[in-house]
């Protein structure tokens, strides 16, 4: 069975620090997608990125970057120069084949203090 692990329950940083959130996805599927969502204190789920198993290139979007390593089943998310507005719970979520029923990790709560 597939298993997604976000081992970091809570991370606290000071503004402008870089922070990396870890996600490990164990699966026997050879083709898969991985999603990251952000849930700010207001409660909505905000889509951040979707990657598939065929694309191992890192992706950068502003202060956000993602490092996908298929060999270790890790899909880590880095925020550079963190800001208070980055404070939220971040979820890694893979949909098992055939890409239905998104399965969520327990999330990592990020607290960024001024």
């Amino acid at each position, binding site marked *: 069975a597939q298993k997604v692990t976000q081992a970091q329950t809570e991370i606290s940083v000071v503004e402008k620090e870089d922070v990396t959130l870890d996600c490990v996805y164990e699966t026997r599927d050879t083709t898969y997608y991985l*999603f990251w969502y952000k849930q700010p204190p207001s*409660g*909505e789920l905000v*889509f951040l990125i979707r990657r*598939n198993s065929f694309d191992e290139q890192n992706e950068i979007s502003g202060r956000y970057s993602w490092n996908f390593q298929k060999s270790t089943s890790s899909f880590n998310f880095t925020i550079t120069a963190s800001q208070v507005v980055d404070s939220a719970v971040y979820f890694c979520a893979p*949909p098992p084949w055939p890409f*239905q*029923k998104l399965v*969520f990790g*327990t999330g990592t709560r990020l607290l960024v203090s001024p």
Partner: protein
Amino acid sequence: DAGITQSPRHKVTETGTPVTLRCHQTENHRYMYWYRQDPGHGLRLIHYSYGVKDTDKGEVSDGYSVSRSKTEDFLLTLESATSSQTSVYFCAISDWTGEGYGYTFGSGTRLTVV
């Protein structure tokens, strides 16, 4: 953003009463889902639908039923509400689009059973 709305946004109900939550989409997506979110559990799948009148159970389906008579509407019914069903409920839609596989969430419904 994808057109997905949940109603009501907030509801307080009494134990033992039936409650129906509505999810409406304007994207013509095939798949629709109901999740609940509770502290310490992340998001857990209640039921999902892969087409009109085609539904299936998720991991926490006891005490819930669903119906999908039209592509755009997916209803979640708590047959006899209990305090353990106090939660935040999220609807989601997914499908393959020109940009790949997409998965979008509604804004959530906060349900309190007293």
